[in-house]
């Protein structure tokens, strides 16, 4: 039974709620209670504030997984990547909505909302972030539309991030 273990992380898993050190402004994901960057860690105690990542980022490295983690069998082969968020932190996640061969270092991605795991057919379903390539404005079916910034996922401010 991992219900509570997953449930308490939902502000992070659903909405990328991280933290920022108000002393040195470094952003962390997942949130931390002390800042590893500040020379004297204790300066930052009690001064880490909630900070929401936008979900925008870039693939730093990746693997195409053929021997899956338990619960990912239906998705083989799947792309796993380390993504550098535009706000600075790096995080690990799947890249979906893409042919694995098209995943490249430097690929621009944004966070999506997907099923992560299910505890069997009768158990709880766990949800959270994965990444998908950004559909660039001016290419493919979007050609001819006004040149707006590329679409962004709506990762909205999360009131429950205070739990962070």
């Amino acid at each position, binding site marked *: 039974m991992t219900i509570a*273990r997953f449930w308490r*992380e939902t502000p992070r*898993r659903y909405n990328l709620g991280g933290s920022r050190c108000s002393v040195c402004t470094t952003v962390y994901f*997942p949130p931390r209670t002390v800042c590893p960057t500040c020379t004297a860690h204790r300066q930052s105690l009690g001064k880490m504030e909630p900070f929401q990542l936008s979900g925008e980022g870039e693939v*730093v*490295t*990746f*693997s*195409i*997984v*053929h*021997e*899956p*983690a*338990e619960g*990912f069998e239906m*998705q083989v*082969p*799947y792309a*796993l*990547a*380390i993504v550098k968020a535009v706000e600075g932190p*790096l*995080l*690990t*996640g*799947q890249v979906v909505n893409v042919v694995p061969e098209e995943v490249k*270092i430097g690929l621009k991605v944004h966070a999506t909302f997907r099923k*992560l*795991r299910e505890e069997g057919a009768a158990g709880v379903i*766990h949800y*959270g*972030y*994965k990444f998908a390539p950004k559909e660039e404005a001016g290419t493919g079916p979007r050609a001819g539309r006004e040149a707006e910034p590329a679409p962004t996922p709506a990762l909205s401010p999360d009131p429950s991030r205070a739990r962070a």
Partner: protein
Amino acid sequence: MRDVAILGIGMTKFGELWDHSFREIGIEAGFQALVDGKLGSHDLGGLYLGNMASGAFLEQEHIAPLILDYAGLAGHHLPAIRVEAGGASGAMALHEGYLAVASGAYDFVVVGGAEKMTDVSDTEAARIVDATADTEWELVFGATLPSLWAMVARKHMHEYGTRREDLAALPVHDHQMASKNPLAHFRNKVTLDQVVNSGMVADPLGLLDCAPLSDGAAAVLLGPLEGARKYTDTPVKIAASQVACDTMALHHRRDLTTMDSTVFAGKRAFSQARRKPSDVQVAEIDDAYSIGGLVALEDLGFVAKGEGGVAMRDGRFFGKGPTQINTSGGLKAQGRPFGAVGVAQVVELVRQLRGEAKERQVAGAQVGLAHNVGGTGATSVVTVLERMN
């Protein structure tokens, strides 16, 4: 702190030990070490046991007194202590035993490492060992240990032009050495083509880039260097035993192609031993994944950052240079019973430094180094050994 020596060694066969239980293999290795070191049980001060996950593999926790009991030593009421550090549990147990003897707290201790991994399904075993990475922020999202190391490999290839074949060279070497090691899990030789074309586990790593899941145990007897000759003809001194840790998740590392835990443990170990990489004739490098061995050689200073691929291609550590690695067959071919690995590496180095490695002997080996990693490098342990002439 006093100098510490290895007085005796013991090791079981590594592999699929269907007929043998965890207690049996643990005891076998321990007794071998005691007998090899000519030490009576009544002189023993304690037992340190490296083990990663007996609870998950065997539904048995609290295993240090269990092994002590079945070794017939329960009546001595010795302290028996389990040590866990993921894949580095064995080397970490050695570190703890070393500190205990060096401090003078105990005179003689047995350091064992044991893991019984084949009593669960392969899927279950993979899930258990994956948990040495960050469960909440890596594994939940579909990561596995091989896929995390594969991302290190991809980055290394991208940054430094390392080739797929460069990764494959180490498993080929390992299997070549293991073919001469009767205790190794795999005794077959493999070719570069076979490694490169082995079934994909996590691109770019194939099945033959990854160490197996094995059963096995290894043990060493430690005591003060002073007076060591009473117990062995060839004492081997622990010239350095150093541990360094880093972020739990790979994605939080300073550099994705550098294991800073290895860099720091290595620097501290060379400093403690007053040695440099070129002084080392034999090294056992943690190559649970081929890329891990390549990166470790860079991080320990045996080769410059980024040149690991070329070194592998040139066979610089396979007999052509001053340092030869993984004469045991490494984790890849000697086998990978998690908690036993770090101790088994030291057992092989002692064989080499004593001149008892038979067909695998590196002539004139005086200094050896062992490198053992937990997870994707959250823990590294580096041990330097010296033959006492």
